[in-house]
């Protein structure tokens, strides 16, 4: 197990530290004037992805990932008492890591475990599950709640991260997130260009 910790910790540092570094280097110029009419439809595309079970089920507030799908009877707490992990890492608990069942590719068995490199929960502050469009929008713009990222970094993360990419290729029996990584990246860029407007809170 020591090996995993050593392996994971640098990984975690890279994941967390890199965006901070980029955020500092790539201070955006002052955003364009806010164009709600143009920006909100783009945000809606982004929200459709972020709130989709393939993404939201692992961006949870209560440290428990979710299962979604007809054969689960809708959406419910992931079985087996799977949790973020006592160390807060998002990689599960000793004896029952995410990677005990989730490997680097999707299981081909009916209802088998999906897989991608580094399967783990999103950090605790990046909660999307059960949040409204306005809430997620506000959150995604707040570096304290988006992994310390600029919006540009968020867009790149969505485009390039392998675990995020899984959301569009979740295996035969799961509904993929809408669109594609590239389309979502473009939507974020367009939304940013329109001043990154957020919908009014309900």
């Amino acid at each position, binding site marked *: 197990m020591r090996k995993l910790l050593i392996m994971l910790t640098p990984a975690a540092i890279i994941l967390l530290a890199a965006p901070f570094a980029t955020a500092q280097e790539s201070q955006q110029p002052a955003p364009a004037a806010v164009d709600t009419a143009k920006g909100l439809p783009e945000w809606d595309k982004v929200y459709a992805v972020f709130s989709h079970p393939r993404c939201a089920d692992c961006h949870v507030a209560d440290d428990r990932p979710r299962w979604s799908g007809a*054969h689960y009877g809708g959406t419910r707490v992931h*079985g087996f*008492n799977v949790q973020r992990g006592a160390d807060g890492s998002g990689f599960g608990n000793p004896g029952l890591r995410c990677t005990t069942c989730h490997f680097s590719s999707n299981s081909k068995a*009916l*209802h088998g475990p999906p897989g991608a490199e580094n399967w783990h929960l999103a950090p605790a502050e990046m909660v999307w599950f059960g949040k409204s469009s306005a809430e997620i929008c506000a959150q995604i713009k707040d570096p304290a709640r988006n992994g310390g990222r600029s919006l540009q970094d968020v867009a790149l993360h969505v485009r390039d991260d392998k675990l995020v990419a899984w959301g569009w290729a979740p295996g035969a029996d799961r509904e993929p997130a809408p669109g594609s990584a590239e389309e979502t990246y473009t939507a974020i860029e367009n939304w940013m260009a329109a001043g990154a407007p957020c919908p009014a809170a309900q």
Partner: protein
Amino acid sequence: MASIGKIARRTFLIGAAAVAGGVAVGYYYYRKPFANPLEADLGKGEATFNPYVKIGADNTITIVAPRAEMGQGVSTTLAAMVAEELDVGLDQVKVEHGAASYAYYNAAILQEGGPFAFFDESMTAEAVRSGLGVVGKLLALQGTGGSSSMRDGFDKMRQAGAAARQMLIAAAAQKLGVSAGELETASGTVLHKASGKSVTYGEVAASANTMPPPAEVRLKDKADWKLLGKPQKRVDMLAKVTGAPIFGIDVRLPEMLYGTVKMSPRFWSKPVSADLSKAEKMPGVVKIVPIETSYGHGFGVIAENTWAAFRAAEAIEAKWADPEYPLDSAAIDAALKQALTTKGSALRNDGDVDTAFADAPREKIVEADYAVPYLAHATMEPMNATARLKDGALDIWCGNQAPTLVRQLCANAVGIEQDKVTVHTTFLGGGFGRRVEMDYALCAALMAKEAGGRPVKVTWTREEDMRHDAYRPAAIGRFQARLGDDGLPVAVDMKVSSPSMIASTLRRLFPSLSAMGPDKTIVDGAYDQPYTIPNYRVSGIAAPVSIPVGSWRSVGSSINGFFHEGFMDEIAAAGKTDPVELRKKLMAAYPSALKVVEAVAGMAKWGEALPAGKAKGMAFTLSFGSWVGEIVQVADTPAGIRIEKVWIAADVGTALDPDIIKAQLISGAIYGLSAAMGQEITFADGMVEQSNFHDFDAMRIFQTPVFEVAVLENFHKMGGVGEVGTPPAAPALANAIFALTGKRIRRLPLSKEVTFA
């Protein structure tokens, strides 16, 4: 209760099944002893005394425990019975399951098959019991089930040990030139104290074997037991913690092929069309063969490894005929409701129920409708068997609960005589009644026929296992009570409708026979409970739904425990009587029941105030001869209802191994709680909807409550233990949830109404 006249007129179903079954397997004269199957297969220097004991010249002592070891500890306690009387330690003996043989018939499995409550010791009941014991022998059914192994083995196994010991003493007396009366035995040795001379059992086994069996077998007094009544180390434990290849699925043979099955997802339906071409071309596939058995139709895939077989089975494209039963769960429910409108057979009919209700004022009536779903057994080890048909002889390896049936049905299936079939019974990775069925063995036998003499290990996928079970039947009940002024029931009328488990079992095991008479399993656990109510009627109706149903741990009592005890809790609430007090009053005529209720209430400190957000519920069921009370404590937590603690008191009459009994009671309760919390098998388009543990799960360690168990020995007859923990678990939980939330849940699983943490 039924009189002998009524019984003769109606021929109750279990008896009919038994007698009819006798025709199928061939009659054996009751008095005629069966041949000792150990004689055929003795090693060099080995001597056998009876079907249960074998001793080698090197003093290796082998005890045959001819019942399926599926976790219930039967191999340990049956061996302990022999070892006790043989005067050897359990660590000195080798325990084997032995061959399939009529010599190992189970007489007790049918003994309680008559329409009598366990406490009914009238002449009629006793006559039927001994009659059914004889039927057990006529049938010569070597079966494990009905929580009967200890009751069946208690005399037989001890006598086997004692008889062998007496013969060994006689032989030792001859050898040492002393009188038998001067000899003692201990740890596999015969000792002449006066001279200090001794011989091991092994040294005199061969000559002892030629001694005439003792005319009279003396058994030890209970007070002198060294092993029985005390916790023993299980004989199977080391193998089970080291991953030893002890299960059917672990069988490995030279030249072995692997396989799986894809049976019709609609029971009994034949393929309308099938395209095997894609599957046949898959890598590793050897052959795909059609399968037809009394369990239905489908295909067997023979391949070079199990995974190749699984993949090819998935690639089989077939269309299946429409089912002969209602298409979906709603239609099945409607069929059960329709059946409930008919009169049914009253297995209990005390007083005059109709008159008692005729003038009942509305406010004194309690009414409720209950329902439980179909359930799968979901043993941890999926169904499997390995078979080899070579030179006209069939060998079959599998965990099973009825080796003589495996032999008989597989012989028929491949068209050879029974004496050409050898059944190798392995340990079972769970049974719970599932491995009474024969489908896994039949499939393997038929596939072996197509394998050119090579053995084939046929392993089912979990999905195939989940979707081709002989399910615990769904059932519905309509109950009515009239309360007296003291809040106690003056009249109770219970009607239960459910597909007949016996009729369904007959169709699969003895398809040429048709079922007749009422099926008492429909009302087991409701009609035979130790309550005194002046007007008390319990009727069962067999609903015509032909989805295969069978024995599921505690059988009818798994259904009626919930129905009866849920309704009793409602009677208590309506009559403003404490649920424990209600039982104590209504069970006053049955001291064993009373003591169980008092014991469990005392352990749980029933009646003491609990902190807010916690509550308790209780239930009691007499099943398989044991009197069991359970109390469940639940707590309201942010994540849902948590089962915190469970207290169990059980009167088993005689406790042969208290630790194994406690483990079984907890096991039975967890099995029942698992089902009550979240399990159901539902149907759509004639097919089972659930497929694996993600949608048919069971209790996990993080949901497991703390258990406290008391084993009592008050009743004068021995009861079973393997199943008896299950029936009271569901109602105790539902009653606790009522106490916690005020919500009365009458339909299982409870997860439809509440969330569990």
